[in-house]
């Protein structure tokens, strides 16, 4: 049972008869009239329990891009359906106002995902709602609420139907803008660029005839001796190397980084961006990419996806990874790497260079990893700390700067330790981490260290 503002207005109109006949009895009669009108309206309203509702939602959408949740409402009540229909979504699904613009469907005032519906019996309509999700993961829809009003619009009936709906919000992959330039570098290294330069790399590719400009050091004297012309060896970057991306989803990945005046985003989001760019690049370079999201147990894993199947698998698998407030189990990470990688591989640890956490967690085990594999530790720096470091205005800011400087020193010490154990370290602000990690990968590839 619901009443609308019209019922209150009708009651208010009772002032006129009461002024003409000022007595309490008049009020009673008028109130009875209003109640009877509301009851009649409720009885005449179309039953919202005889409306068939179906929710059509795309399976997945990228973070901050637009998706449409569509309700298909079919009036099987035997009466004209005058109703407000709400397509309920959680706040971070970013539902906008209703988008229908016809004589049967209009946006309703007063909230996201609300539609005014006027449907004759037996007909159906589509009610589109725009969703712009602001948070990664599975966004689950609420019920569909139908408030069916009577012909007078005074009162009506309301029901919330349990219509299922789920939208998987994939990572934004904003770092894909860095992909074309890195792919160009990769092609140059591969020797396939329009500008023909000698392919860098360490893997023997083929023999060909010497042309002026070739490096004389690459002349293959043994082959030259067998033939009459000078022959050079060509090299290409290694292919089919293995890349394992380990995403740390422990407690340090939950901390938010970003400018001081914004809510920021979790470190994990920047790590995911970097992982996606690296996976796209390594996939194009012909390497086999695997991913493990780990804190004390495996949260997500991508294994054996290659070619066009790699990036969808990565996005799908990273969509639902959330930070967990637990200390990461680094010996467990080592076990994971050992079981996954039997031969030499590039192991990228996307984690945080938090001195205390690293000293107790990563540092004791990193040499075990670096012995068998090429290890890169990538960490997200905080813009806000960088701002604190430069503060000199007040005494409090100077203390902030001193604390930030102390933190830097400790981080530098940890970085030095990691390098001494044979791991490469990449530390960058959230937006820079993905391209920096991609460059590191290209550098390793060019140097033949994969």
């Amino acid at each position, binding site marked *: 049972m619901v009443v609308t503002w019209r019922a*209150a*207005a009708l*009651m*208010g109109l*009772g002032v006129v008869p*009461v*002024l003409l006949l*000022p007595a309490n009895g008049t*009020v009673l009669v008028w109130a009875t009239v*209003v109640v009877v009108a509301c009851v009649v309206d409720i009885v005449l309203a179309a039953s919202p*329990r*005889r409306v*068939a*509702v*179906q*929710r059509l*939602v795309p399976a997945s959408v990228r973070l901050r891009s637009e998706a449409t949740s569509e309700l*298909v409402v*079919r009036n*099987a009540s*035997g009466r004209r359906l005058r109703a407000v229909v*709400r397509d309920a979504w*959680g706040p971070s699904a970013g539902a906008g106002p209703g988008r229908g613009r016809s004589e*049967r*469907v209009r946006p309703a005032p*007063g909230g996201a995902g609300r539609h005014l519906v006027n449907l004759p019996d037996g007909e*159906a*309509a589509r009610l589109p709602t725009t969703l712009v999700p602001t948070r990664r993961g599975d*966004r*689950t*829809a*609420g019920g*569909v*609420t139908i*408030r069916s009003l009577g012909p007078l619009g005074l009162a009506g009936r*309301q*029901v*919330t139907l*349990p*219509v299922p709906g789920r939208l998987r919000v994939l990572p934004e992959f904003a770092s894909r803008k860095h992909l074309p330039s890195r792919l160009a570098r990769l092609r140059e290294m591969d020797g396939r660029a329009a500008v023909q330069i000698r392919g860098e790399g360490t893997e023997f590719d083929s023999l060909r005839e010497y042309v002026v400009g070739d490096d004389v050091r690459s002349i293959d004297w043994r082959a030259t001796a067998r033939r009459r012309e000078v022959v050079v060896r060509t090299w290409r970057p290694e292919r089919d190397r293995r890349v394992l991306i380990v995403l740390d989803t422990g407690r340090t990945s939950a*901390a*938010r980084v970003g400018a*001081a005046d914004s*809510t*920021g985003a979790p470190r994990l989001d920047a790590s995911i961006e970097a992982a996606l760019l690296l996976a796209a690049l390594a996939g194009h370079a012909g390497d086999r990419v695997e991913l493990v999201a780990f804190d004390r147990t495996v949260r997500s894993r991508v294994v054996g996806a290659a070619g066009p199947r790699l990036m969808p698998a990565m996005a799908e698998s990273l969509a639902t990874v959330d930070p967990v407030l637990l200390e990461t189990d680094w010996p467990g990470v080592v076990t994971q790497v050992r079981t996954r990688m039997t031969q030499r591989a590039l192991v990228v640890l996307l984690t945080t260079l*938090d001195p205390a956490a690293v000293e107790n967690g990563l540092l004791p085990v990193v040499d075990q990893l670096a012995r068998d594999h090429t290890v890169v530790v990538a960490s997200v720096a905080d813009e*806000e*700390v960088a701002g*604190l470091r430069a503060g*000199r205005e007040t005494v*409090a800011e100077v203390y*902030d*700067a*001193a*604390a*930030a*400087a*102390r*933190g*830097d020193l400790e981080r530098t010490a940890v970085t030095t330790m990691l390098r001494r154990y044979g791991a490469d370290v990449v530390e960058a602000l959230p937006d820079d981490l993905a391209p920096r990690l991609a460059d590191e990968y290209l550098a390793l590839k060019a140097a033949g260290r994969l």
Partner: protein
Amino acid sequence: MTAQPPAAPAPPAPTPPAAVSVAAGPIDEPPVIVGDDTTGRTRAASTWRRMRWPFLVFVVIALFVLFLAVVRPPTSADPYAPDNPEPGGGMAVAEVLKDQGVRVTHVTSVADAVAAAGPGSTLLVTPNPAFFADDQISSLNRTGADLVVLQPDFGLVAGVSRNTVDSTYGVAEGPVEPQCDDPAARAAGAVSLAPGLYDTSTGSDAVRPVLCWPDGSGNFAYARLDFPNRSVTMVNDPGVLRNGSVLEDGNAALALWMLGQNEDLVWLVPNPMDVSTGDDQPTPAERGQVNELMPPGSAPVALVAVLAAVLLALWRVRRMGPLVVEDLPILVRSAEATRGRARLYRAARARGHAAAGLRASAADRIASRLGLARSSDANTVVDAVVAATNRPSQQVADLLYGPPPADDAALAELARRLDILESEVHRP
């Protein structure tokens, strides 16, 4: 925009119960939902299941309150009130008088007392926490009723006795005999009431007070004036009426004698906020008739407005479906650790630590810019900086490795000078 939903079910039969019908579409086809699998009966049953315990608790509480109201007579906690059974109340005397056939009327304002009292009745005025106004006292005098005043203040003594009695402060010192010719006093015998009333009448006064129970210095506990049509009795000690002390000595006899003389007793327990006199025409507001001040018909209009407001509230209070729940994200800023450390430094005035951090960080950056190893010692760094900046060696050493700053201003100055030094260093 009309569209046929894919795999829409046949319209359900118009007879209840409406049930959830899920169309078995192809794989990945979202289900079509009709109704929420309830009928009027199941909804009523679930409402009853949800509400029965709160309802039961409410009923039990209501029954308990009703039981208390029926079983316990209405009492109050006002001092000297005839319905107050506590030691400070007057219920004992009032109940005895009622049993003897005296009609006790409990009032709390002078206007009500003036309206209720008249010739042939007794008007009891219990102690006033505040003071009576002069016009209130004259109103009390004009009722024609016999007046009994307990513990009167100066103004009330003077007013009701026509300036023939005055009061002062006294302390009871054990039971004394009345030592006067007054029937009530003779009936009561020895009492220990605080004295404090004394005779100020002169020969020109028509009525002179009878004073009883003196102390050694001429103050009395009891005074009585017999005017032609009425009497005025004053008792300096209200203990004569209190439940807690009415049984001591002759208190009960005195109280019953004073208050039981007439069939009607008006029992005034003054309210300090009361300013009524009962004289003039009371205002409509005083009579509780606000309506007379309002334009005609305003009450029904107000009723209409209230009903409309109730409907507005019902309109606004109904949600458009339940809230959709969602896990909250973790909101911890990464910089909080740094800020917390800075506050610890500041709270502990750890200027030495803060300065050491700034210096080491600056030295680290300068060393890497000059191409020095991280393990270089202080002298190497200072020499390199001196070579790069042409500053005096002592000054550079002081800046980078000097003593901790003495106060916060020195710390800020050190940070500023380190910045300048760093900006001057370039790769040689």
